């Protein structure tokens, strides 16, 4: 019981909060929060500073970076202005996120159903091949990506904020996967375009073949 700390709704801390155990913030913290356990930021909670912990559940407002050793989940109604860096990140539809979103390591098995959902969208359905091709490269080093979908993870992720508000996808990783399929769309019209028809000089019916005059 001494491990679970609560910062109540009417409480305001102007300074840093550090330590072990888990923490639930229902009030305001103007400073950094750095704990070894889980951090829950309720809807009324406000943190003006970075939050660092094992697992973060953010439903309030944060003006600072989020770092977690395990996972971060940003609930609907949350506002995060700052970077989100963790091994696993979940951003629910309706959350507002502005900043770098970065996961490390290989994508786990969990996002696969989300990738199938993106496959069913009209954009991705027509070309499953590029989606499959892009995914291994997304997992591998960003430098190895082909020039067409060149943008490295950080730059691509920075355009994520605009997409989070508009896109129906629920997981950040699904959005990362859906984007390559959209980026490869300009190639499709080029593929289905037929080679231009050969230009044939018009020949009137019945006209004798004209003989070329040779200069003598």
């Amino acid at each position: 019981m001494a491990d679970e700390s609560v910062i109540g709704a009417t409480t305001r801390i102007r300074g840093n909060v550090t330590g072990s155990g888990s923490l639930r913030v229902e009030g305001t913290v103007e400073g950094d929060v750095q704990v070894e356990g889980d951090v829950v930021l309720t809807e009324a909670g406000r943190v003006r500073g970075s939050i660092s912990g094992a697992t973060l559940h953010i439903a309030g407002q944060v003006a600072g970076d989020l770092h977690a050793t395990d996972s971060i989940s940003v609930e609907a109604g949350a506002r995060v202005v700052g970077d989100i860096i963790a091994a696993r990140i979940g951003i629910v539809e309706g959350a507002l996120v502005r900043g770098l979103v970065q996961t490390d390591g290989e994508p786990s098995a969990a996002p696969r159903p989300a990738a199938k959902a993106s496959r069913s969208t009209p954009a991705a359905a027509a070309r499953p091949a590029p989606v499959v091709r892009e995914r291994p490269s997304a997992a591998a080093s960003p430098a190895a990506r082909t020039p067409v979908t060149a943008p490295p993870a950080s730059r691509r992720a920075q355009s994520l904020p605009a997409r989070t508000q508009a896109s129906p996808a629920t997981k950040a990783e699904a959005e990362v996967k859906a984007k390559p399929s959209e980026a490869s769309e300009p190639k499709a019209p080029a593929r289905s375009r037929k080679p231009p028809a050969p230009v044939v000089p018009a020949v009137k019916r019945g006209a004798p073949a004209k003989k070329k005059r040779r200069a003598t």
Partner: protein
Amino acid sequence: MAGTVIGEGLSVDGELTSDEEIVVHGTVRGTLSATDVVSVGTEGTVEANIQAAALSVAGRVTGNVTATERIDIQAGGRLIGDVKAARLTIADGASFKGNVDMDA
């Protein structure tokens, strides 16, 4: 149920203000200002001036404390600092060093 609980491993460096009950089992350094009851648990350490409605000390408090109602220093508690309250109890076994002003 207390509104704000500073758990045993937690450390707050800075100003802490609240309108609800505060229980400190960890460490608070800076200032602590509340309009309700403040309790410092046996493992709690407060190195700050405390302003509260009522204060109960079972841990270590270093700083001047002012309460609008009462201050109780429990057995095993240590208070080093000036006390300003209308009512005051210092239990047998408590440790206290400072001035007392009960002129409310």
